[in-house]
């Protein structure tokens, strides 16, 4: 793929959105044609954006299933890379929104407005990753720490709005860090492994 003699050149690089023609091989398919749709060049050229893009791609790679169509995951990844390519002021905020929504797309939707155990309408101020979201006082463990309402509000916005809304988010850095830590823990719990690229994301 990366040999100078490759007829695909720089088309088959990570982050590239490509239109491929594949020949079905015995174990792996063989790329016979590749056309570039978008290279997301700004994401490649900037370290902070590249680290966020890498975390997006890594998470999508872990959650996508072999030979299974996943349009929502694909479209979310495209939205994430497109938003990063606009060089947002806080790329890590775009990443957090992407990761939280990715968990939802993958079937691990975090419940924020109703109790994740009994469905009692909220808001509830305890969030438990293992339970999949907020818990009412009856279902919350007795030693659970309540979540700051500002963090809950940010999580709600991360999950609900378009990723472009996170570009220049003016949130309190303390609230932003708390929400980012919770999103990372939530995804790590459901993936069963941490995302390596997250360690290089600048907060």
């Amino acid at each position, binding site marked *: 793929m990366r040999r100078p003699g490759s007829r695909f050149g*720089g088309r088959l690089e990570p*982050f590239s959105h490509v239109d491929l023609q594949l020949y079905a091989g015995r174990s792996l398919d063989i790329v016979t044609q590749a056309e570039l749709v978008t290279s997301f060049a700004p994401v490649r050229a900037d370290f902070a954006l590249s680290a966020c893009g*890498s975390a997006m791609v890594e998470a999508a790679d872990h959650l996508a299933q072999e030979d299974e169509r996943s349009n929502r995951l694909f479209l979310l990844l495209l939205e994430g890379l497109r938003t990063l390519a606009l060089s947002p002021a806080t790329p890590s905020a775009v990443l957090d929104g992407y990761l939280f929504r990715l968990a939802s797309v993958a079937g691990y939707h975090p419940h924020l407005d109703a109790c994740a155990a009994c469905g009692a309408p909220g808001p509830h101020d305890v969030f438990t990753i293992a339970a999949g979201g907020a818990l009412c006082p009856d279902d919350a463990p007795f030693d659970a720490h309540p979540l700051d309402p500002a963090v809950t509000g940010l999580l709600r916005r991360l999950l609900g709005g378009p990723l472009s809304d996170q570009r220049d988010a003016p949130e309190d850095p303390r609230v932003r860090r708390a929400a980012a830590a919770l999103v990372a823990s939530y995804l790590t719990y459901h993936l069963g492994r941490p995302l390596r690229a997250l*360690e*290089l994301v600048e907060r």
Partner: protein
Amino acid sequence: MAFEGPVQDLIEEFGRLPGIGPKSAQRLAFHMLTIDTEDARRLANAIVQVKERVRFCVRCFNVAEQQECRICRDPRRDPTVLCVVEEPRDVMAIEKTAEFRGRYHVLGGAISPIDGVGPDQLRIKELVARVGAEDVAELVLATNPNIEGEATASYLARLLKSMGLRVSRIASGLPVGGDLEYADEVTLGRAFAGRRDL
């Protein structure tokens, strides 16, 4: 079916080398059976010698037989310009061009967030220390033009420009003897972005 004794051992050893699959390993092992004992001994000796005598240059981390490599010891090289590369083999590739007369710094890889390789795993601290201690005025970032190399160059540019140095990046574009029609969009786009006056 596995072969017996030393032949199987040799196949397994060859099979551990990069780019050598089981069939190639078997072919190499059987080739060894056909060559002269003296040739085999010379090969074995070359492997032992490279492990015993070759080390990393204490200054630039290129491969060396002494404390410092041949390039760092050469007083004719320009000490004010440093070319930053990923691996020692990149030093050889640039030396073959005979276009660069400065010195090098070998990072030992590139930043790769997906593989969990960050700046701390590379010789970036050593580069910053060199820039502070030596009379360096310009850094040429010659990391590979792929995702990892670009991320590394971007990180280094941000870090080192703040130290008041001139930081440049090697150009990327069309290969000599290439054909525009077959160039991919990324490469051709870069060739245009980096065009120069004649």
